[in-house]
Every structure is written in C-alpha cells, then in structure tokens.
C-alpha cells in the first residue's frame, strides 16, 4: 500500500492517493497533497476543504457537486457558487481533487 509522508509519520493512502482513514487527516496534509499536484492552497481553497470536511462529518459522505455549489452560493455569493469557480480552484475536479485534499474517500456505486 502506498503512503503519505507527513511530519515524519506515514499515513496509509489508497492507489489513487486518498487517505484510507478520514479521521487520520491533519490540516497540513492538504498542503502536502496540493504541492504534489503543483497547487498552492489559498484561503479560497480552504473554504471548500473546510466545507467538505464539515459536510462529511455530518453526513458521512462527500457532498455532490450540486450541493457544494448551492451551499457556496448561499454562504459566499453567486460569484463563488458555480462549477466554473470550483474547477478553477481544483483543476482535476472538485469532487476528486478537493475530496482528496480534505482526506475524504470518493463515493462508489452507480455514480
């Protein structure tokens, strides 16, 4: 199994680089993962990552993009509540990339 090296410790990730235990996540990991993807996290990224974590803690699944867009729009206005904005922040896709940074598993099934 591959690992993520963080602050001298090894954390288990799956073949696609997702943390296998979402509770093992530490804030700094997001930056490490982002660096590997050639991104620097800004406060805009963090707004999303924090929203994802909070949603996951409440619902035990990452939100669908529709919910993410809607909630962002409500909280931060229409200029942030759209898919284009999310893709600008997370070029590999908000569902995949942002969830990985947030230490959350990706959904499986007929999706």
């Amino acid at each position, binding site marked *: *199994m591959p690992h993520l090296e963080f602050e001298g410790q090894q954390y288990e990730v*799956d*073949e*696609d680089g997702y943390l*296998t235990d979402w509770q093992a996540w530490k804030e700094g990991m997001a930056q490490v993962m982002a660096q590997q993807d050639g991104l620097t996290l800004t406060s805009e990224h963090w707004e999303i990552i924090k929203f994802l974590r909070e949603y996951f803690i409440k*619902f*035990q*699944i990452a939100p*669908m*993009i*529709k*919910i993410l867009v*809607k909630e962002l729009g409500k909280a931060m206005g229409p200029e942030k509540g759209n898919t284009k904005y999310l893709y600008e922040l997370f070029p590999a896709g908000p569902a*995949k990339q942002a969830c990985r940074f947030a230490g959350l598993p990706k*959904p*499986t*099934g*007929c*999706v």
Partner: protein
Amino acid sequence: MANPKPEELARIEYKPPKTGWMDTPAEIRKGMFCHAGKSKSLEYVGLPNPRQWTVMEEDWKLPENWQEIFIEGLRERVNKFRSFRLFLDICVRCGACADKCHFYIGGGDPKNMPVLRAELLRSVYRKYCTTSGKIMGKIAGARELTVDVLKEIWYYAYQCTECRRCSLFCPYGIDTAEITILARELLNLLGLNIDWIAGPVANCYRTGNHLGLQPHTIKDTFDMFADDLETFTGIRVNPTFNRKGAEILVVVPSGDFFADPGTYTTMGELLLFHELGLDYTWSTYASEGGDFGFFTSNEMAKRLHSKIYAEAKRLKVKWILGGECGHMWRVWHQYHNTWFGPMDFLEEPVSPITGTKFENAKSNKTVHICEFTSDLIKNGKLNLDKSRNDDLVVTFHDSCNTSRGMGFLEEPRYIINNVCNKFYEMPPNTIREQTFCCGSGSGLNASENMEIRLRGGLPRANAVKHVVQKYGVNMLSCICAIDRAALTASVDYWVPGTRVTGVHEMVGNALVMKGEKKRTTNLRGDPLPGMEGE
C-alpha cells in the same frame, strides 16, 4: 493518468498474436482493470481472505490452498447449476459471438471474444472435471490452473459487463454472462474482488444502499430536490420516508439520489407522484434498487436483495414500484422467485390511478416505473406538454438488463414519444435486444479502468454519433443509473456535446401540474425553449 485521444484509441489492432492463446500470457495493463477490493469491505460482509493486495504486485496474497479452493468451488457449482455445466460443455467454438462483444470491438484483444473469455475458465474445467481433459490435457483443450492462469481469469472476468449481447447470437444459447458471473463467484472464494464492487456491497449491507447514504443524508438530499422543484414549478412536494401503511414502496437506484443526471430523474418522479396524489413512501433502508452483490456471488446478491422485501413487509405496503435501474430488474425478473418464492404478504399490483392490474408482476409484486407511467399515459391520466422538451432531440439506449434481461422494450419508447416531439432511433442492430452495453456495467464504472470503459463504450457511442450526425440528436436517454453515469463519460469522450437523461426527467419536464406556476426552466434549471431571458 491521461487517457489517449479518441483518434488514437479508435485505432484498433484486430490481428491476433502469432502464438496460440494458451501460449500467449495475459498482459495485465493499467487502465484496463479496477483496484483490488479493500480488506475492510470484504471483512464487513464476511467474504473470504480479506487483506491488502495490489493488482500490479506479483504476490496477490492468495490462501495457501487456493488451487484446491478454486477447483472444489468449480466442481461444486458445476454440479449445482446445470446451466453452467451445459454452457461449459456444449460450445463448439463457432465464433458467432466473437465480434458481438463491445470490449472486443473496441479493444481488439482476442481474449475479449466471448468464446475465448469463457474458454479461459472452460480449459480449467476440462482439466479438473472431465475425463478427456484429465487424460489428454492440452489436446483436449485443458490446462492446469496456475497463478498466471488464475490472474488471467480474473483480468478478463472483470472485462466483461455480463451484458449478454454475445448470448443473443449464440446458436446454442450459451449465456457467457453466466460463465462470468460464476467465474467472479469463484474468484471471490479467494478474496479477488474489485474495490468498485466490494465497497458498494459493504455499504449496501450497512446502510441499505451502495453509496452508504444514511437516513438523514437521504432526507437532506430530498429536501434539496423539493426546494429546486418548488423554484421551478411553484409546487412543494412532500415525500414521506419509511411510512407504515403506505400503499406503495418506491425503490430506485441510489445513484439517482446522488449523481447528476440521475438526480433529475428522481426529481421527475417526485413531480409525477405528487401530481397523482400517490399513496407511496420512500425507504431510507431499502434505498437501493441495484445489487452489486449480484456481481459478487449468488449468496451476496440474495443477502442484499432481501432488504427490499423485509422493508415492504415491515411497512405493510401492498406492492413495490421499481425505478429506472438496470440490473435490479435482471435480479427481480430472473432470480427473485427462485430465491424468495412467491411474496404472499404483498398484493397483486393494481394501479390506484387507472385500475390496471399488472398481471406480469403477479408473482414478484414489483412494477417497473415505465410500465406504471405508460399505463397512466395510455389511460389519459397525465396532462403532458411535449413542447417543453422541444430543445431536445432524443434517442434511446436500451439497458442490457431490461431489454435482453427481461424483454422490456416498448414502454420507455411509448413514454418518450408522449413527452417529446423529436425522437430518433439508433440503427436496429444497436438497440432493443441487440443493444450495445454502455461499456461499464456489472460494477466496472470506476475511474482507474477508464481505458477499457471507453473502449467498451465505443460501439454504443458510435451509434450515438450516427444519429447525432443524421438527425442532430443531442440527448441520449436511458433507464439505468449505471448507464447515466457511464454514458455521460463515454459520450463526453466519443461524441462531445451529447448529454444523458433518464426518461422520467423528461416526464417531469412535460408534466403539466395542477396549480403550477408558468414554467420557465426545465428540471436542470436551464431555460425552456422560448423562455430564454425570462
């Protein structure tokens, strides 16, 4: 890993290797297989040999006596299922199936010819279960079960979507899907499942649906649907959950709760049920029509499917209305009664709106939503404004499981023709019983195997492209959640610009409801034709 460009992927080499198939080892290649099933998922449902393993590593961490387990398992199933034995025995290798498989057409790998894919297991069967194979070995088409042979069987068992297009053309009627189903069952005895199946199976056993949606998550999602629908129609739908005494239990694939464009299908259904004033309930437990257990083993399929009836019994409903799902119907239609017998605690389904008795659902008490809706239309119970779908030029993809699996062909077409004005069929040899698979069925719709998905999706996408060019089709409709997920990726790659929809999304758009406000958008929030700028 970036996928090759369409024009590169479409350059397919059909020339077989010089060496015979037994002497040509399988090359396990990234992009063609799914990740290994996770230990915790296997453990959760008690599947054998849970451990961390990786496909590309040499050691798959098999049990010490793996060969014995596999061969014993094979013998047991050959004796138990007469069809399986027959399918292994009677193939004359005529090759009628060879070029019918979407994976072979789109990939050119001879081991994806259904005849040869089945031969991978058949050769092992001959070696250990037939006298000629035991004595004559290779001459009789038999071979020993080595680790490499096992890996080859695994690799190709998860490059078959169990769509059964090959069996349609087999002069003997051999169902290669059944061979794949049992090959996967045998592989599962050794802990060789894939993550995209094992994960949903464990989720489904825990929460009642593949995604692992918990009751409050489902409720929250429906609240959002209701909000959106209120914005679009001015009408507030009030779905109920786990309501005892409701007349009908509605079960749909959980993908339709969670992933676009399936969510719009659920929204269309919500509008329809509201307009009818239907006495129905959703269940947060029987919250999955699909059954990834069916892609694992017969036993697992039974275990996951049983929740629907347990819930129907608990809620004391009269009958079950099933949604736009593919393999759910195969399970219901072909396996259900053998597993669970007649459902005596339910009533024979009768539409409360039209009084129609669904004779065909007499034994399993489950009606397909397209049967239900087409009956409503036939009896003039719905007020439909087709012109609301005038921006759509629609074609229809038959799901393998509903078309080949249960002969369900006319109802969705009848509905589509009543809710939109522009409907064009794809070529006859790519629809109805001869439909091409979406390319990702039977639990293969992961992302790491995208190359094989796109290859398998090529024949269907090619037919879509034909109607796009000929008639200007811009919407591919279907009645299966895997289709909606898989075709979205496939047409986006092969026929960009084409979108995917469920049939009941279009119903929801066309449905004129009592007391609704003037509709200006469709269920996706896009302007209706002629309403741009309003």
